[in-house]
């Protein structure tokens, strides 16, 4: 009897330990379920931080899904505000939601954005047999009949993926952007599946989500939303060179609690810089369709403030917020 009891208790104790993790190691919170970009950020950066001896212990990744990152944000602000061993994965989605007041009144200045070390370029994609050959074809078709093209994307309506085609259309002189059809599906791969299947006419997402389908020839990328063409994908034109001045990249980075000291903040910035400079990270970026994009420390915080101001303005224009 006692033996059985110990077995049952032992099992739960082991599982409990694994689930809650150790308290002394660096913790990286991925504010989403495993499998998405934030999880990727935590796991890859976490692994490199340890491999490059920037931290003494393997980084513990905690998945804290909820409210598009809002649950984790709230948790960091209210419970871990002065924890120097905590990093949290963030991306354009984080700032988009903060700008749209989607985190129940919490604002971007309640944490410190410590750096981004790579960016996933935004793309506009069609199936291989689509009649649209250029971005212009697509934009003109929508101008002629806004209902004729539906976009599928991995983020919720009003989210970053939704905004990308709207920005392009605005740049092309189309103002009635509320008429543009967009459906939110479960991630970029699902959005591509819907587009290849002909249920939607175009997909909007991040470049990394499209690589496999691009190489297999199932899709064509009409435009990449960067300043210059992405290294390794030199035959894909930018929206800019097609006459639509839109740059939208999904940066991959981290924020840290507001209450840590400047020294601690700068230490994290240096560690991130070390990861960004490593050959391993460059390889990971190349393998995953990320473009170089490194901004750390105070520079990054300034840049973020500008992005949030822009997003707020855009969101008001398309009516996501008043």
């Amino acid at each position, binding site marked *: 009897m006692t033996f059985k009891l110990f077995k049952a208790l032992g099992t739960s104790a082991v599982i409990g330990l694994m689930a809650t993790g150790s308290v002394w190691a660096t913790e990286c919170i991925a504010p989403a379920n495993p499998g998405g970009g934030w999880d990727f950020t935590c796991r890859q950066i976490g692994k490199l931080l340890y491999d490059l001896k920037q931290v003494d212990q393997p980084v513990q990744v905690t998945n804290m899904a909820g409210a598009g990152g809002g649950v984790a944000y709230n948790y960091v602000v209210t419970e871990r505000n002065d924890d120097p061993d905590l990093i949290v994965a963030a991306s354009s989605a984080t700032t988009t939601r903060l700008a749209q007041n989607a985190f129940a009144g919490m604002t971007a200045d309640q944490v410190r954005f410590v750096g981004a070390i790579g960016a996933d370029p935004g793309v506009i994609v069609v199936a291989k047999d689509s009649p649209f050959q250029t971005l212009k074809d697509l934009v003109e078709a929508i101008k002629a009949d806004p209902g004729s093209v539906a976009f599928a994307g991995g983020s919720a309506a009003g989210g970053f993926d939704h905004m990308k085609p709207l920005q392009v259309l605005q740049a092309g002189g189309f103002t009635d952007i509320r008429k543009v059809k967009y459906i939110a599906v479960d991630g970029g791969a699902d959005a591509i599946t819907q587009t290849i299947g002909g249920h939607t006419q175009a997909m909007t997402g991040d470049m990394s989500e499209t690589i*496999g389908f691009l190489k297999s020839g199932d899709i064509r990328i009409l435009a990449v939303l960067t300043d210059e063409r992405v290294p390794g994908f030199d035959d894909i034109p930018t929206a800019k060179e097609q006459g639509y001045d839109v740059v939208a990249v999904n940066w991959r980075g981290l924020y840290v609690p507001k209450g840590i000291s400047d020294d601690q903040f700068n230490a994290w910035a240096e560690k991130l810089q070390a990861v960004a400079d490593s050959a391993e990270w460059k390889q990971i970026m190349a393998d995953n369709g990320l473009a170089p994009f490194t901004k750390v420390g105070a520079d990054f915080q300034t840049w973020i403030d500008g992005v949030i101001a822009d997003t707020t303005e855009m969101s008001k224009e398309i009516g996501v917020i008043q």
Partner: protein
Amino acid sequence: MDTFANLALGFSVAVTPFTLFLAVVGCFLGTIIGALPGLGPANGVAILIPLAFSIGLDATQALALLTSVYYGAMYGGRISSILLNIPGDEPAVMTTLDGYPMAKSGRAGDALVLSGVASFVGSFLATIGLALMAPLLARIAYLFGPAEYFALYLLAFCTLGGLAGKNQAKSAVAALIGLGVAVIGIDPNNGTTLRYTFGNLHLNDGINFLVAIVGLFALAEVFFFIESHGKDSAVGVKLGKVTIPVRDIVKSGWTMLRASVIGFVAGVLPGAGASLGSFMSYMAEKSIARDGDTFGTGNPKGVAAPEAGNNAAAGGALVPMLTLGVPGSGTTAVLLALLMTLNITPGPLLFQDRPDVVWGLIATLFIANLVLLVMNVPMVRIFVYILAVPPWVLLPGVTLISFVGVYSLSGSYFDLLMMVAFGIGGYILRKLEIPLVPVILGILLGNHMENSLRKAMVLSDGDWTYLFASPISIILWVAAILGFIAPLFLRGRLKRPPLPESADGTVD
């Protein structure tokens, strides 16, 4: 022939003493994780990922360990469904319907062995399907747009009425409660409307499925036990001598095959997953079986069908994950994360680019299946021992594990409060003799169904005819209408004698 050459490559990668050892460990851990309420395959795999990295496993080894855990959990879920009437994980919900009545009538051993064999048949066939046809099958996913998915979920709801036999109205109420819970959260189709969240961020994403299931089944059971001082409680079913019920296995042979096919197809469709697979398999068998009336009272076919179905769906869910990078279920989403962390990007080219990984994985699945068959049939007692501790030990244990498991989902105490609320709700529902399974199905399918309908309406500018515009939709609609009407019609025609009240073991 290519397939055999590839498979040989796979086995050459997978068959090393160390990977075999990992597969055995994974199967064992997986079965335990599956059997424990509150810990399902998704959080089981997620919990073990850091372990896989910290002991420095390479891609094949990590996959061997974690897919063994995945398959193991799919097997293990049935154990607590049958012995405790508490599903070990969500796909095992359907197994409670006949598995527990069987156990209650003294056939726990038979139910466990039969479901073990059914699990094996389901996942073995699914693994063959994955090996032979994965790239081809991926095309099925292209055919399903919002309209087709809506029709599919509608089909599931239309057959729901036949589920709980005794009182249709109460099943309908239960399903509606589930649907009501499903609308909680941010409206994904406009991204701004908050529904019934009362300003609480934790409710923005809606109610986690596992929270509901653990509350409704496990905690409600604990409350019942306390109230009745153990009399009439599900806990404490004794396992007699385990023999192999050859007759039952032979009799449900075709059931397993049919259920495997249905489950596999449900698994291949992203979004539907193992729960829908086991549900559809069960309902299909119930409607075609001559003794369909005895489903829900301990019919062996009612045990074989959902278990073959959910294990086949687990294999099927790997198809879109590997070939499209679209995870069809929570667990495959976690496995996808693992692959990406290993710098393997699933997608249309994975089979060409990384045959060693894909075929090594498939070979591992075959090995894991054999290991699991051995563990779950001759050696099933080991796992039963874990659940066979006296109730005064087991119940606090179940409660403890439920809390730990649910906390590991999102690391938030809010889910724990939700779980307790569901436990109280489940207790009240059981007092009112309202079945719990339709509640779960309502929560699970309601979300998907609403989203599919909303997306379809966005695409068609609100034109309803879009819902019947493709051949697949039409077939599903016809099946749904038949599924709804046929039971009403047949019930009048056949005039079977009413079942004795005591035979209904699903809710009381």
